[in-house]
């Protein structure tokens, strides 16, 4: 058989972790990236990476990490994958340390760990406040080393357009667009991995980078791959407003003791430092005495919304709250949070070491993504040799990192994304190679005619885009679409608005056809690519919005007040476990529970039977057809979440 190779699309943490692992195993890898991989969106991750190394002697363990992750995701994540990931996490942190990541240290020289949202343990390793950047650089360096050795080839300034499928529907390569010459051609590959990150640009301004359009996974969806849990979009509680993007203010600011508050008096016009302590409302600390400012992001974002919109206590009457670090010394802050405080200061002109920051919630992460498979072991871990791991519903087409869907359920815990990205890249690699080793033929030996049809299709598609001469400016149309998504498919969701947004999206789709390609030149022209990406963003916005419309419940980041089950204030989750046990034993002793608890548990149980399922979107007749699939919840019994 001829020499085989894998094509990795995307050079962030997931893509580079897979690249270096497969190269280590002797496989040739072609990395395709929009930009030099060192500039990938992973650099924006700030606060850290989770792993239960238990440096602080708190009794932390991978199983507690697993529990926090599953609970944080409101039980929608696939448990064997989460368990395996959390068990691999300490090793992954050690590995990244060996590879030169400049993690912060304890006085004794061990890795230091800090707290993050949704856990009570110090579990987050960090390199200042630019941990994602530091992790990415370490992987970038490893991959560069393999490049010099000839095992890895990089095609930077190239974009993925679609998979090449053979007659059996198996992925045998990718159609690649050279962003400088404009040339569109096929690259042969025995497997293709989409490690292309999230879709923040569907919402226009988010904490995401400019390449995060979700276009590659949407392309896979349009080719028949299933898309999972699209409606689960994480809104991060703390970002800095900006005209071009909403810059993240890391959760680590709260992990290091940052306090969120608003003036108790609506419209208080005093400067924050002039407002005395007793006139400040530390609403997260008051409402969640146990987790305080470190509630998970879905909870935090909802509370900020509630305090600003319902209670009208937002700073200056706007959708903003204070995030206050001024009780710490400058030295402490510079050492542990320098990177993010510099960002705040550079972009707002205010020194957050002296003045409380003004922050507000912003679109941050997609828990959903392209559907991928896995093979579990009897112990509830993952069989790392299985070719199914991370494979999409198109044979030979894989996905990793934020592009996939199954690790974070309904809400991702902070500092679990860097983990899931590196974990998926490393974990999947042996299975991908097993898949390749058992193929009947190498892609290299597949006739050129299989590829030329795909190439021709895309060449025609781009020629058509270039000839578009309508009235709509693609960038202006994108802004309008994003406004619609921001207005109606964000923290609080209502069916009537979701319905009208779906109609609006159809209008955007019609208007897309009336676009003018504002640059028709051949050389280094980003406009045709953007028009194609915009089409895909329109398709993806349908997946998100329709999934949200049909899911009539409140789970994780997907909040519909109409379907809130209203957990009684004094309810404890253990009560529900007892209730479920009695149900299994055949009889619920109803008089053992208070009536409001009992009624709540019945509502909760009924809701889970109906909705504790993965949303699957499949492309049919020009839009998503929604169906539901079971989630593996065999290791930790689903129960109501509680953080106070």
């Amino acid at each position, binding site marked *: 058989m001829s020499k085989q190779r894998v094509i990795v699309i995307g050079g962030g943490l997931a893509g580079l972790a897979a690249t270096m692992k497969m190269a280590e195993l002797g496989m040739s890898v072609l990395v395709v990236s929009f930009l030099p991989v060192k500039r990938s969106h992973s650099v*924006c991750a700030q606060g850290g990476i989770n792993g239960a190394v238990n440096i602080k002697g708190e009794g932390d363990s991978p199983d507690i990490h697993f529990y926090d992750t599953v609970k944080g995701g409101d039980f929608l994540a696939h448990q064997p994958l989460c368990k395996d990931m959390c068990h691999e996490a300490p090793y992954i942190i050690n590995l990244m340390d*060996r590879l030169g990541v400049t993690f912060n240290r304890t006085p004794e020289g061990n890795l230091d760990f800090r707290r993050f949202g949704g856990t009570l343990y110090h579990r987050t390793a960090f390199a200042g406040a630019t941990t994602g*950047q*530091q992790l990415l650089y370490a992987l970038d*360096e490893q991959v560069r080393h393999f490049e010099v050795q000839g095992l890895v080839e990089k095609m930077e300034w190239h974009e993925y357009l679609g998979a090449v499928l053979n007659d059996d529907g198996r992925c045998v390569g990718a159609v690649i667009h050279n962003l400088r010459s404009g040339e569109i051609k096929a690259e042969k590959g025995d497997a293709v991995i989409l490690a292309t990150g999230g879709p923040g640009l569907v919402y226009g301004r988010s904490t995401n980078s400019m390449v995060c359009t979700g276009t590659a996974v949407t392309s896979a969806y349009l080719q028949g791959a299933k898309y999972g849990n699209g409606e689960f979009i994480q809104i991060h509680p703390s970002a800095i407003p900006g005209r071009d993007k909403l810059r993240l203010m890391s959760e680590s600011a709260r992990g290091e003791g940052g306090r969120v508050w608003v003036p108790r008096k609506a419209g208080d016009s005093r400067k924050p430092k002039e407002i005395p302590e007793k006139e400040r409302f530390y609403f997260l600390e008051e409402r969640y005495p146990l987790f305080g400012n470190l509630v998970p992001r879905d909870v935090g974002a909802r509370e900020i919304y509630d305090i600003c919109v319902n209670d009208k206590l937002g700073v200056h009457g706007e959708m903003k709250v204070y995030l206050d670090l001024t009780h710490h010394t400058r030295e402490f802050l510079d050492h542990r949070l320098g990177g993010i405080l510099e960002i705040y200061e550079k972009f707002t002109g205010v020194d957050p070491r002296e003045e409380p920051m003004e922050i507000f919630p912003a679109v941050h992460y997609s828990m959903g993504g392209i559907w991928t498979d896995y093979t579990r072991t009897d112990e509830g871990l993952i069989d790392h040799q299985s070719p199914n791991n991370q494979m999409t519903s198109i044979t030979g087409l894989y996905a990793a990192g934020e592009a996939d869907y199954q690790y974070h359920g309904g809400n991702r815990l902070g500092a679990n994304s860097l983990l899931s990205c590196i974990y998926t890249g*490393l974990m999947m690699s042996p299975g991908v190679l097993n898949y390749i080793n058992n193929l009947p033929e190498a892609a290299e030996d597949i006739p050129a005619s299989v590829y030329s049809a795909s190439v021709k299709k895309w060449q025609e598609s781009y020629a058509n885009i270039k000839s578009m001469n309508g009235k709509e400016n693609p960038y202006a149309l994108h802004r309008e679409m994003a406004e619609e998504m921001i207005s109606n498919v964000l923290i609080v969701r209502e069916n009537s608005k979701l319905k009208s947004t779906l109609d609006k999206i159809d209008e955007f789709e019609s208007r897309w056809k009336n676009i003018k390609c504002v640059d028709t030149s051949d050389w*280094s*022209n980003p406009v045709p690519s953007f028009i194609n990406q915009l089409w895909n963003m329109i398709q993806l916005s349908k997946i998100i919005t329709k999934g949200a419309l049909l899911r009539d419940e409140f789970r994780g980041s997907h909040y519909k007040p109409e379907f809130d089950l209203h957990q009684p204030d004094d309810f404890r989750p253990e009560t529900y476990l007892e209730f479920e046990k009695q149900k299994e034993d055949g009889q619920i002793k109803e008089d053992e529970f208070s009536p409001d608890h009992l009624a709540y548990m019945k509502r909760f149980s009924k809701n889970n039977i109906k909705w504790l399922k993965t949303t699957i979107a499949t492309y049919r007749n020009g839009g998503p057809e929604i169906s539901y699939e079971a989630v593996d919840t065999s290791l930790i019994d689903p129960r109501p979440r509680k953080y106070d």
Partner: protein
Amino acid sequence: MPDTVTFKIKRQDTETSGSYWETFIIPYIPNSNVISCLMDIQANPVNAKGEEVAPVVWESNCLEEVCGACTMLINGKVHQSCSALVDKLEKPIRLEPMSKFPVVRDLTVDRSRMFDALKKVQAWVAADGYHDLGPGDRLSQSHQETAYKLSECMTCGCCVEACPQYSSDNNFLGAAAISQTRLFNMHPTAKNIADERLDTLMQEGGIADCGNAQNCVEACPKSIPLTESIAEMGRQVSGKLWRNIFKA
């Protein structure tokens, strides 16, 4: 408050075509940075003469000064355009591509030379494998502080743009790559090949090409102590020279 902001942008259609200046006048919006203004031009690509033109092409990604992509000359000074705030800039605002690299189109340049330099200086830890080999070495907090600062380099090119020695006619490695040799020569395992890195620095285009103008450290957006790094590597290179003499 002004009603409009004027941009004078140096444009170039292809790698080989000549450059030309084009003026854009866009509505003033508070809290703008250079990138948000370029986005406004994209959404309404009409120049000051009222002609519809191709939108300006630039490179960007993170928009929060951690990826390095959007570096350009702003009023003649090299900087990331994402963190260049319109209110703080003299008007009209002049945008040009970096001058030390081949222009791809408009404000986009090809910085491959910087990434090639990272290959030359072997800026990596040569690992035995990616399996579980336990934790890395214990390191002091002061070691971490020094290494972290050096490791923040995003290969943006500000240092070499500002450097009088770095030019298209020579093959000087530049401050960024030299500083990376310092980072890896202080890492507990990457320093195993410290001598090989010093050999590279002793070759043509190496540390001897530094003219000590100290512009690099001024230009670095991350305040990386580049001149300190160059001095440190100078010491390491001299040390090796002496060792070579005694060995001979």
